[in-house]
């Protein structure tokens, strides 16, 4: 085995998710049988619970275009797309020396970047527990109405 090129391009989580979905992976481990290997199924399951699962190619392209003004490095853009930060401390973790690069004098660009992420990248799926809670509250609402 010869490694011709160790890094022949990076993939976002969405790329991998889309690739596995196109090959027939589903979030149900039994449904994957035959289509993809069990290890690929585990990767799919992980990505299915990440923000990648609601993203589309258009939303990522739009984000890449509109985040140009913040002068982020490619790695930072990739990490923001994969993680979809939802509050300021997360941006500080993702962007190196954020305090110097995004805060210029009185102008703080962090909320702007956060808003862009919120607007362009779709909301991640609700966590299973949260979804269950939501379901529960909906049911109790229904009961209220019927009662």
């Amino acid at each position: 085995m010869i490694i011709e090129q160790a890094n022949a391009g990076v993939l976002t989580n969405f790329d991998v998710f889309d690739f596995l979905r196109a090959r027939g992976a589903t979030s149900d481990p039994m449904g994957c049988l035959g289509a993809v290997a069990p290890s690929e199924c585990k990767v799919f399951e992980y990505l299915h619970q990440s923000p990648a699962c609601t993203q589309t190619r258009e939303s990522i392209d739009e984000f890449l275009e509109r985040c140009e003004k913040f002068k982020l490095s490619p790695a930072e853009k990739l990490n923001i797309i994969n993680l979809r930060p939802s509050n300021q401390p997360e941006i500080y973790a993702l962007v190196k020396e954020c305090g110097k690069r995004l805060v210029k004098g009185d102008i703080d660009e962090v909320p702007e970047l956060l808003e862009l992420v919120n607007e362009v990248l779709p909301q991640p799926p609700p966590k299973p527990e949260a979804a269950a809670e939501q379901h529960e509250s909906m049911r109790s609402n229904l009961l209220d109405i019927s009662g």
Partner: protein
Amino acid sequence: MFCLSEIEHDLPIPPCLLNRPLISAIKEELERLFLDKVIANLGLCISIYDVHSVEGGFIFPGDGSAMYKVKFRMVVFRPFIGEILMGKIESSDEDCLRLSLGFFNDIYIPEHRIARPCKRGDDGIWVWLYEGEELPLDIGEEVRFRVLSIKYPPVPNEQKEDAKPFAPMEIIGETSGDGLGLPSWWGD
């Protein structure tokens, strides 16, 4: 987190696969060989992305397999240093936290890289002491961590009976810093 790697490999295709279309037979053999395995200094192989070129098909004397020189691309799990990932806490030991991504379990947060100041409770759970509050890192919680280094330890010749199972790829990370740790710590 994921990237593509281009690889060339001399691949024998056993006779039982030769009635299949060549590319699908080659993909199946490559999947059997590489999937879910770690290549040292490259990463964990996730999936065969595409096959670029196939050359040869020579059959060596005394062997029924056809030898092909195959160039292909593979999806590899190899986070970059400084990347921030999300993982579940799997176990909480004296000197480290162990995290899991579901498909990869060898992520360690050494004690001095867990949020500071911290202490370990009687139940073995690490707790971050923040302005008089106690924020626990419970087992099963999802945490964000930063990748500090990736190690590919050499395969040991001999292993003690009580040693932990050998891991061909280990990620060392930290959960101390802005925005890291449990997402609920930072929610507004």
